């Protein structure tokens, strides 16, 4: 089987350095400067580095500690996921305008099946190039100037690799029939699913490029990588990728988890975190008009062994009290005495109706978060006063801005927004009661 489609009908769009780009958009003083978004605690990792920071060798998934040593003058920000989600939704809407068949891979990445786009009858390379450029202009318009890279090819594999070729801010259309010539000289690690582990095993067979990979028999690959992975890699090396673009799947589960700065042992503290996660999960359930029937907890031990436990309720619920009660019971089944570095609570088996409990009104009122033993500190995302670098704030006298840094009872704020241009920096008392968090503005009623 050759490449399944004879036209380049799969488009892959990847927003360039997405989280960092949103920060630079909303924080004019950071434009053109290195920006690193990630976990700010001692165990934080880099989620996204701006291209300016990448020049210093900062990469995604690198430990924050290493990123700081490589690029000490970068702005290190905790990330504003509400803003990223909002921006991502705008981009996905643009893609949906192009074709009804859109498969989001994450907030900043999606496939589009152009063969499902009714108005696109001519899929010649020149037309596709115009489509890609039009798409990028529209993305830039709705996001307030973000750039995206687009790859178009006859399969998901080719489209995804193509979007990397001229990144950032580029377009590559791979003409059908040229896929194998394009792939052969590339490193095997460009193939999705070939990470460091698989890469190492292949290197031991003398394989570094896709050309090398193509010379291996399917038997050899299966022996080294196992049936499923071996066979799929054999096909991908030949550009044979018949995976369909799957329309946006409804989410199958909703979960919240946290990695801690230090391993946690105290059962009361773990229970309090379970409660907090359960509340967050249920807020998202209710926000999406959903309920769930299966409650799962995930515990990563000090030595990285990960346990999950789940239980299925008699009927779906969206009540934090119920999710919390079940999750606490599940937590008791796991030995946490040696210390926990990650704790997560999730709900799956989603439905759009709820089997309420006769005793719901008898459940003890939910304790405010503050009553729990300072879980916010534990999550490693905050100082005692809750000011986190990158957070949107608003001051009665100085207006809107963002937290530049905090500590020692003080908070430094740069008073600027995407619209104001570079603004001034002021240092305030951390407990200044004129300063508060600033929620995202209400979305445009478009």
């Amino acid at each position, binding site marked *: 089987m050759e490449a399944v489609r004879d036209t380049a009908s799969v488009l892959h769009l990847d927003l360039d350095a997405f989280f960092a780009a949103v920060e630079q958009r909303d924080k004019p003083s950071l434009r053109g400067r290195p920006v690193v978004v990630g976990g700010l605690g001692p165990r934080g990792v880099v989620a996204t580095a701006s291209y300016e920071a990448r020049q210093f060798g900062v990469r995604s998934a690198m430990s924050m500690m290493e990123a700081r040593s490589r690029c000490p003058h970068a702005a290190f920000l905790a990330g504003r996921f509400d803003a990223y989600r909002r921006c991502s939704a705008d981009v996905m809407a643009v893609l949906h305008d192009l074709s009804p068949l859109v498969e989001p891979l994450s907030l900043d990445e999606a496939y589009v099946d152009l063969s499902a786009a009714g108005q696109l009858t001519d899929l010649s390379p020149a037309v596709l190039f115009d489509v890609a450029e039009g798409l990028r202009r529209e993305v830039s318009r709705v996001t307030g100037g973000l750039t995206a890279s687009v790859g178009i090819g006859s399969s998901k594999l080719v489209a995804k690799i193509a979007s990397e070729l001229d990144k950032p801010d580029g377009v590559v259309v791979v003409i059908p029939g040229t896929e194998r010539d394009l792939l052969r000289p590339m490193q095997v690690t460009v193939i999705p699913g070939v990470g460091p582990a698989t890469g190492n095993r292949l290197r031991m067979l003398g394989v570094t490029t896709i050309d090398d990979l193509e010379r291996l028999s399917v038997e050899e690959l299966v022996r080294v990588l196992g049936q499923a992975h071996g066979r799929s890699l054999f096909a991908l090396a030949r550009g044979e990728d018949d995976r369909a673009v799957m329309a946006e799947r409804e989410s199958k589960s909703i979960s919240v988890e946290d990695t801690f700065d230090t391993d946690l042992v105290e059962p009361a503290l773990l229970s309090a975190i379970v409660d907090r996660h359960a509340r967050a999960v249920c807020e998202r359930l209710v926000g999406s008009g959903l309920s769930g029937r299966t409650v799962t907890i995930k515990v990563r031990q000090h030595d990285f062994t990960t346990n999950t436990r789940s239980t299925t309720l*008699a009927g779906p619920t969206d009540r934090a009290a119920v999710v919390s009660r079940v999750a606490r019971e599940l937590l008791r089944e796991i030995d946490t005495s040696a210390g926990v570095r990650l704790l997560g609570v999730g709900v799956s088996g989603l439905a759009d109706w709820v089997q309420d409990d*006769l005793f719901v009104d008898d459940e003890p009122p939910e304790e405010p978060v503050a009553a729990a033993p300072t879980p916010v500190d534990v999550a490693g995302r905050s100082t005692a006063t809750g000011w986190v670098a990158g957070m949107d704030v608003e001051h009665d006298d100085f207006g809107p801005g963002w937290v530049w840094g905090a500590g020692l009872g003080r908070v430094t704020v740069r008073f600027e927004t995407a619209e104001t241009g570079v603004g001034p920096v002021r240092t305030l008392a951390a407990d200044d009661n004129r300063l508060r968090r600033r929620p995202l503005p209400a979305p445009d009623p478009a």
Partner: protein
Amino acid sequence: MKFRVDRDVLADAVAWTARSIPARPGTIPQLAGILMVAGPDGLELSGFDYETSAHAQLPVEVADEGKALISGRLLADICRALPDRPVDVSMDGAKVSLTCGSSRFSMQTMPVEDYPALPELPPVVGSVDGDAFAAAVAQAVTAAGRDDMLPVLTGVKLEIEGATISLLATDRFRLSLRELDWRPEQNEFSANALVPAKVLGDTARSLTGGSALQVALAADGGGSDGLIGFSWTAGGSDRRTTTRLIDGSFPNVRQLFPATSETTAVVEVAALVEAVRRVSLVAGRNTPIRLTFSDAQVSLEAGNGEEAQASESLDAALDGEPITIGFNPTYLLDGLGAITGSHVHVAMTLPARPAAFAGMPGEDAEPDLQFRYLLMPLRMQG
């Protein structure tokens, strides 16, 4: 040990005794056995799992006295399959031999000395008509929980006040309340007991027509050492069972029945059951069936536009505001199956508040409040 016994009397008593034998006896293998004791009073059969004990006394001509402990599961399987002839049982060395017609069985025994002593029956506190008890328990256990994570809800709460026993059970989503008349030994008797629903149900099922049931209860009831017992005669043998009461406090559920209702409806039970069964075919298991009460009708619908849909309408006598309310169809059918009478009386307040069901002996009769079933509706999200 040597005796002859009627096949049906033996088979019935063994089957009943074997119900309290643990499925997995774990570290105490002798609990998998039924203890057989042949003595001057006939044949005694005992089964015990440290929670529940079962004891049957059969009027049997005993030729030689003696005892044996044999696998309860095997004995029950054998007795169920025996032809309809008298059964001869005797010791044959270390084995028990059983002969019935031309069938012969030889069974291994376990050491009798290792078998634990059964708890004593607590003092008898009163008695109740067997048929009435069986009917009441069958209704009450409808709503009992089966989730071992919530052991308190796997019980039926017996609230005894004078000449009335209230049986309450709930699995958090529905609640059954049954009032039962009984004859206490003392008029002022008052007690509470949380009894495993399974034991109560097994006891009720083994009662046969006309017999009276003695109720035995440690006077203080409750507590971790609480024990309830029942004794009665069935299938040609005297039986008694004891079971440990469930430790824990049963939620205060009586007040969950709404004092007033906005809408009441009266619908013929058989027609409603049929309609619910049909319409819920398109609802997956545990997805809602929606009932709209208005204009002297109840309309049932299930499913959604994307998949299959079904709907049906029935006559209903309505009083009050129109209402649309969704239920888990299984829970709804359980409730409709438990009430007695030709019609059901449904009292509702709001779509998200529980609805109360009661049976009616006729369309224009008063609702029979001896048994009430309260069901929490499903709430549509978004």
